[in-house]
């Protein structure tokens, strides 16, 4: 055992160092005073130079939020959040004028992205910006605390009419698009956290793919919470016009901190006729330490509307971080023959809690949805799959297939499956399969007898268990996601 423990310790020392070291101390923030009230909402809106209608929308949301109660139905347990004890706006001071090149972005930030496999290399980006060299595989928008710091390859994309920028910029440059679609999938009154987000959101990404355009590269946003005592409230809005295609990847990290930090994002997707949006998430927020201290509360609302005929929205998520994850990326299948997919891996270790799943709302005829959810629990973690499949009366010939598999490592963790199925059309067909298994002693020994350490064996077996989901990730990120899966289970056996 000694040798295994030593390696685990070494790897942990390295990763923790990465969390600890660096830029949190180096960058001064421009902070709003702590607390939440109408003045803070106005402050944020003014900081961003927003139009009147948006301020009104924010205030409307804020007033509504005051009337709402924090939901308690999820299988997660945490002390009450004091919403007055947070800063609702934090911008790196240096970036009042946005950095012109990545020279001005902190190298630690870049190192973090690189650790997650984002090829955000300066040379490549400069080449892209100048239009030199070949078409890159990935364009990145980086959100640092509340502010978007760098969007790469913008010109390349503009040549095809694609808009990829921060949501703040979109509000300034493309107000008609933002006004038309923002809040159209997740209304301001949707739920406690989404409503809060509407009031105080600070930045996020915006994508518009024009008719008939296939986005030539992966679009990617990297979110990072840096300043302490800040919440992060981003909004992402992606619109795929008729016959277009886009694949979008979101990654998240946060430094180690003892206090819990709130992250309440809203993501809205709109797919028109024959359009496809593929949205992938690799979530690696700080999960707290092995005693359950610190970590991010990840309370996120993600929803996609398949508005058009034959449209398709596919969610793939690899959730390994956060102290608490509370998210249900959903599809509203409105257009006839539209398709919704949800592929999920949720890994919880130590004291992490995850209540995650999806909703598939079948409205149009012959709409189809597929759900593949893999939950892995280790340590004292609790993981819940919660999914709703709703078939409305007009959804002739709707189909759903759901598969939920849970894998337990050790005997102090738990996995729960809570499927809700509501079918109001007799021609619809809904299938649900669920399995729960323990990582088997036979498998572990078989691997070890071939020379693999116990840690590597667990990593390999769990990656095998998640394969169906991981293969849905864009190539560029699949390998990194596999490593992340193994790393997040460190110390879970032995």
């Amino acid at each position, binding site marked *: 055992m000694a040798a*295994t423990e030593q390696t685990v310790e070494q790897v942990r020392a390295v990763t923790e160092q990465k969390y600890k070291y660096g830029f949190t101390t180096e960058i001064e923030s421009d902070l709003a005073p702590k607390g939440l009230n109408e003045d803070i909402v106005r402050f944020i809106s003014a900081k961003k130079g927003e139009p009147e209608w948006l301020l009104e929308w924010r205030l409307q949301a804020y007033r509504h939020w005051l009337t709402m109660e924090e939901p308690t139905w999820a299988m997660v347990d945490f002390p009450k959040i004091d919403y007055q004890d947070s800063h609702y706006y934090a911008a790196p001071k240096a970036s009042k004028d946005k950095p012109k090149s990545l020279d001005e972005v902190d190298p630690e930030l870049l190192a973090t992205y690189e650790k997650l496999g984002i090829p955000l290399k300066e040379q490549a980006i400069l080449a892209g910006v100048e239009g030199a060299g070949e078409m890159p595989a990935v364009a990145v928008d980086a959100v640092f605390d509340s502010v978007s710091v760098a969007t790469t390859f913008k010109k390349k994309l503009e040549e095809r009419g694609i808009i990829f920028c921060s949501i703040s910029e979109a509000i300034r440059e493309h107000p008609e698009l933002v006004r038309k679609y923002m809040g159209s999938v997740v209304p301001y009154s949707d739920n406690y956290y989404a409503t809060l987000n509407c009031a105080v959101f600070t930045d996020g990404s915006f994508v518009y793919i024009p008719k008939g355009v296939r986005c030539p590269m992966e679009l990617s946003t990297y979110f990072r919470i840096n300043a302490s005592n800040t919440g992060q409230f981003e909004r992402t809005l992606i619109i795929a016009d008729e016959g277009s295609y886009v694949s979008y990847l979101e990654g998240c990290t946060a430094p180690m901190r003892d206090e819990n930090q709130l992250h309440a994002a809203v993501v809205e997707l709109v797919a028109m006729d024959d359009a496809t949006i593929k949205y992938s998430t690799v979530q690696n927020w700080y999960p707290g330490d092995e005693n359950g201290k610190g970590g991010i509360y990840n309370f996120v609302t993600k929803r996609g509307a398949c508005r058009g005929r034959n449209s398709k929205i596919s969610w793939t998520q690899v959730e390994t971080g956060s102290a608490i994850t509370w998210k249900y990326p959903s599809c509203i299948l409105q257009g006839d023959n539209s398709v919704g997919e949800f592929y999920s891996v949720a890994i919880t270790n130590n004291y992490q809690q995850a209540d995650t799943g999806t909703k598939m709302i079948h409205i149009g005829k012959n709409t189809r949805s597929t759900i593949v959810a893999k939950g892995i629990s280790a340590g004292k973690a609790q993981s819940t799959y919660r999914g709703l499949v709703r078939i409305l009366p007009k959804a002739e010939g709707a189909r759903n297939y759901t598969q939920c598999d849970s894998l337990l490592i050790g005997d102090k963790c738990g996995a729960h499956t809570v499927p809700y199925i509501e079918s109001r059309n007799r021609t619809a067909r809904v299938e649900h399969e669920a399995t729960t298994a323990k990582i088997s002693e036979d498998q572990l020994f078989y*691997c070890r*007898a*071939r*020379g693999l350490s116990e840690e590597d064996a667990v990593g390999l077996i769990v990656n*095998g*268990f998640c394969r*169906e989901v991981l293969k849905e990730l864009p190539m560029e990120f699949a390998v990194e996601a596999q490593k992340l899966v193994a790393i997040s289970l460190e110390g879970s056996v032995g």
Partner: protein
Amino acid sequence: MLEIKNLHATVDGKEILKGINLTINPGEVHAIMGPNGSGKSTLSYVLSGRDGYEVTGGSVTFQGKDLLAMEAEERAAEGVFLAFQYPVEIPGVSNTTFLKTALNAVRKHKGLPELDAMQFLKLIRAKAKSLNMNDDMIKRAVNVGFSGGEKKRNDILQMAMLEPSFAILDETDSGLDIDALKLVADGVNSLRSPERSMLVITHYQRLLSYIVPDHVHVLAYGKIVRSGGKELALELEAKGYAEFGSPEAA
């Protein structure tokens, strides 16, 4: 190479091995035969370091080192290999990924550079071909959906890739068809060398006519009760194990 002295082991508090003595020199092939439940697989697990098999007495020295002090993966890296009586399925993990990870772990332990994807593929294709396994089989998930005989062949492929210095084959012949038996035996024989030793567990003389052993032992009720040359296997086939008593007697 391997020296087992007065080895006692229990499983779930029940003593299964009751004082095994066995010395295997470099290059030797030893066969172990014996009735069902006599402790043959238990011995193979104890030697390869499986958790839950508690050694209560005795010692095992492997190439001058205390084998029992090593973790399972260290033993594998030091050159101990077990071909399982029941090879295990690992869904979603391809044979190539599994073997590449294993081979590189063992190479790392030996201070050798890791093989890259191309070198590895070339090697595994060549070895698989000699065992009559096609590309499809090496790409599939480890043992998932494999027939009994295919699983055994897959374990031998792993052995051929890892090139251990001491291999234990636990009933590798059971479930193999006549042609496969010949292929596997050829595979095993091609690995025989003056440095490499083997412990072959089997119920049937037939395997031993292909893989000819230097010594044959009878393991009954936790002890080696008789040892001899290859002709002992023929004798056992004719007479059975009756003369070695019953569980109560042991």
